[in-house]
């Protein structure tokens, strides 16, 4: 009896096993089969070589250079470590103390990876001693590519730099876990996906020790080179121009259709520092510099546009039908609105002024009156369309929009209603109005051609040209009156009394433009005669604008300059801009035809 029970028990126990095996091998067979497959199938990744960035004439401005690193095994004893370092030192001079420190810092108990002690050794430095070094069992030599930016400060704001991919980068693109480097700024960031490329994959079968038993198939690693519109020679020329004269600011050279030929900021920084990981000391030096070398002022520096707003506002006023361009309006030295005096820049005023004189002489009071005539909301809506206080959509990261204020904006921002005086200030590009230099360049192109271009740095991706785009933002009426404004802008640079005429050295063709002086601090009410700009302390001096286009009869290029605390626009930037135009001729960017030339 008991024996029978025990036999039944045994039978039941074996049955339980059978049920369990049934569950594993039949019910969940698929699951376990895929697990078995996962065990053996591994994918090996091949890193793509990051795409090269060329300038408009195929000069590489970001490329990869083969470099070598020496790695030591972890957990070496002090005598072995010293012996190994001495051994390396006999063939390849190294700073033993520094290297020892690096090794100690990384040699944690939990680390089982080899520790890199010297990185980025040049090929020619290591190639002769490599056969000797690799025989030491304690060290390995690995090769990797270092991203090089040969133009350093000159192009850093445009090209940007690569850095180690962090967690959020990897979350966006899982392949970065293997590629490791990703674009962190500038073009490197903007076109990161194209430059990074895709991993090559090799499907293999491995055993439990991860040894490859068989290769199945593979795909190649791919990446694409790109070309920019930037001309590195011109860029360097302009950078050196600013550097020599120590003019801090931003200069943009752009085709009227939007191709950015040069975009220079001074001061700047060396982007190569970031590739290897910038040190805290160097980073602090960059960040705490009062002149903001890290800021791409051309697209992210915010300044009041000052008088550069005047051609556009003039056009808006004429096209509105409320202003007769030929009517001479009396412009005294000041007008009073609500117990507040608004003065012209010129003591004594300009007398009777039409639109041409208003642009040529940059008559403030004329514009105060226009402003009051149109009202802020009408002005803001129209000027925003013309590029003020709005992102230009240039193909660079971190562009800022600036501000083109209206009543609603002020309500939302400050919970206050709008004052008339603020309309007056906005009419001469002061007060709340803030723009970036690239916005002024784009607006100048609009004044020159009637089309608002989207500035573009990229020229080619792989073999494919990327066309530029222009937006048709002007109304028919505005287009009709545009030539009047252009005439005013011509007078700025060429007529006697034009605010830039004296400062533009003689050029063999006509250019047109507008000066601007953007105040950074307000002038007390009782001061009648303004101080000369160069008598002010540096930080109180106004920012100087000069934006131009040329040739006048066939506008092809826009050159816009902002000189921080440069004082008067024409004075501060006229010389530089003349030199740039001369360089453009010399480089055959501007082909002089007969009708371009001055008679």
């Amino acid at each position, binding site marked *: 009896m008991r024996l029978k029970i025990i036999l039944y028990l045994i039978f039941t126990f074996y049955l339980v096993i059978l049920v369990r095996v049934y569950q594993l091998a039949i019910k969940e067979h698929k699951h376990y089969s895929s697990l078995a497959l996962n065990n053996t199938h591994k994918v090996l990744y091949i890193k793509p070589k990051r795409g090269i960035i060329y300038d408009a004439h195929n000069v590489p401005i970001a490329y990869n250079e083969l470099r070598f690193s020496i790695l030591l095994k972890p957990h070496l004893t002090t005598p072995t470590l010293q012996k190994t370092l001495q051994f390396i030192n006999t063939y390849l001079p190294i700073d033993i103390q520094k290297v020892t420190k690096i090794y100690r810092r990384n040699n944690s108990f939990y680390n089982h990876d080899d520790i890199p002690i010297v990185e980025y050794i040049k090929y020619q430095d290591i190639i002769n001693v490599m056969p000797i070094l690799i025989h030491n069992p304690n060290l390995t030599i690995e090769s990797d590519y270092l991203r090089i930016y040969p133009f350093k400060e000159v192009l850093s704001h445009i090209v940007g730099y690569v850095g180690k991919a962090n967690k959020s980068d990897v979350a966006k693109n899982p392949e970065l876990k293997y590629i490791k480097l990703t674009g962190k700024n500038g073009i490197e960031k903007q076109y990161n996906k194209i430059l990074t490329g895709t991993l090559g994959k090799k499907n293999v079968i491995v055993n439990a*020790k991860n040894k490859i038993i068989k290769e199945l198939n593979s795909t190649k690693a791919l990446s694409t080179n790109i070309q920019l519109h930037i001309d590195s020679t011109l860029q360097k020329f302009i950078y050196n121009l600013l550097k020599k004269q120590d003019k801090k600011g931003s200069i943009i050279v752009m085709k009227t259709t939007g191709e950015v030929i040069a975009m220079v900021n001074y001061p700047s920084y060396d982007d190569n520092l970031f590739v290897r990981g910038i040190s805290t000391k160097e980073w602090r030096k960059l960040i705490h510099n009062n002149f903001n070398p890290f800021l791409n002022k051309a697209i992210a520096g915010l300044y009041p546009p000052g008088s550069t707003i005047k051609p556009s506002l003039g056009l808006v006023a004429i096209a509105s039908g409320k202003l007769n361009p030929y009517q001479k309006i009396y412009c005294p030295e000041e007008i009073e609105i609500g117990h507040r005096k608004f003065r012209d820049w010129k003591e004594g005023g300009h007398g009777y002024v039409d639109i041409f004189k208003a642009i040529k002489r940059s008559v403030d009071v004329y514009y105060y009156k226009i402003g009051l005539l149109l009202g802020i909301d009408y002005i803001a809506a129209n000027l925003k369309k013309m590029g003020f206080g709005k992102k230009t959509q240039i193909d660079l990261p971190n562009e800022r929009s600036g501000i083109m204020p209206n009543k609603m904006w002020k309500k939302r921002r400050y919970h206050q209603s709008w004052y008339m005086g603020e309309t007056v200030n906005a009419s001469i590009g002061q007060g709340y109005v803030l723009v970036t230099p690239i916005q002024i360049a784009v607006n100048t192109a609009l004044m020159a051609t009637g089309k608002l271009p989207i500035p573009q740095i990229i020229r080619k991706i792989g073999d494919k040209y990327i066309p530029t785009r222009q937006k048709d933002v002007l109304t028919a009426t505005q287009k009709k009156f545009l030539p009047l404004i252009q005439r005013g802008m011509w007078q700025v640079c060429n007529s006697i009394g034009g605010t830039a005429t004296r400062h533009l050295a003689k050029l063999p063709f006509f250019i047109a433009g507008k000066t601007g002086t953007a105040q950074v601090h307000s002038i007390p009410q009782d001061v009648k005669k303004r101080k000369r700009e160069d008598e002010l302390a540096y930080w109180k001096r106004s920012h100087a604008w000069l934006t131009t286009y040329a040739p006048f009869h066939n506008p092809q290029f826009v050159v816009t300059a902002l000189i921080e605390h440069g004082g008067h626009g024409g004075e501060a930037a006229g010389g530089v801009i003349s030199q740039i135009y001369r360089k453009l001729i010399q480089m055959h960017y501007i082909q002089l035809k007969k009708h371009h030339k001055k008679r």
Partner: protein
Amino acid sequence: MINNKAIYHFDFVLLFLLFPFIGISLFLVHEISPILFKKEIAYITIGFVAFLVAFLFPIRKYLWIIPFLYFVNIALLVGVDLFGVSILGAQRWLKIPIINLTIQPSEFMKTTMILMLGYKIYKNPPDKGYTFVELIKISWIILLPFVLIAKEPDLGTALVLLIVGFGTLIIVGVKRKVLINGIVFLLVFIPFAYQFLLKDYQRNRINNFLGHPSYHVKQSMIAVGSGGVFGKDKQKATQTQLKFLPIASSDFIFAYYAERFGFVGVIVLLSLYFFLSYYLLSYVSILKNDFFAMPIFASVGLIVFVYSYVNIAMTINLAPVVGIPLPLLSHGGTSFINFMIIFGILENLLAFKYEFLYNFNQENEDEGL
């Protein structure tokens, strides 16, 4: 030397029942490693020699040798405790100084213990079941090695001995009242033992088994699960061939078998084990008056069941991982030879059931022992 009667009583079925296991083992081990296969051929040969020696040894004549072997084995276990070699935290091995050989005395304990049980029961046969006092008097034979082996610590082997020992006593005969009390005691004692008597790593193993299986078990389950209905070719049995399945030839040989032959193969193997233990246990009623042979058959039947069950169960996460081989299948000389000795003794007990001496001419079949 061996007369016709002995050959007549020799159980060829029992012997032939071993061949499928040996065949399967040789086949699997050959596929896993040709080197291990050569070793296996060697120890199987030795195993058969041991079988023959154990068969021919007139154990019923020299019964005194049983307590002698038992206590020598116990002494060796104590020796392990005092001078043993510790491998991976468990002190299970004894180094023999001159010939530089390590032995694992707990491996042989199952043989000497079941013989000792048979000896003791033969000396004090139960009269319609053991009483509580009688049971205590016998069970020290089980508890002494249990404590010594559990202390090593090798709780798995110790518990298997405990189950086999007491299972045998229950089969031989225990009074109903004692049996019920024993079951109640166990139900109370197991939770207590888990909480207070187990070491951390042992509790971990049990928790692992209840929760997430370890790497070994996971790979073993993958092997079993990927085998499917009919199993996979040698080349496609990647779990074993590419060495993801650890110790595939020994403790986890069942997983390879299942990967190779699938669910159908498992039915065959389980039937073989069931039939073997059934066959051994069925001798209990045939030999019900032979109080020496009967308990030994009972315990061997239980050993085959408990060992095979625990081993297979751990490979499919039905039991915690313990170092218990699959009887006759796992690659391992000591375990195999040990089993062959046991089966030799069993054949001896059958063949010379009616003879005390090999050339005993007197025929007295009816009297029995």
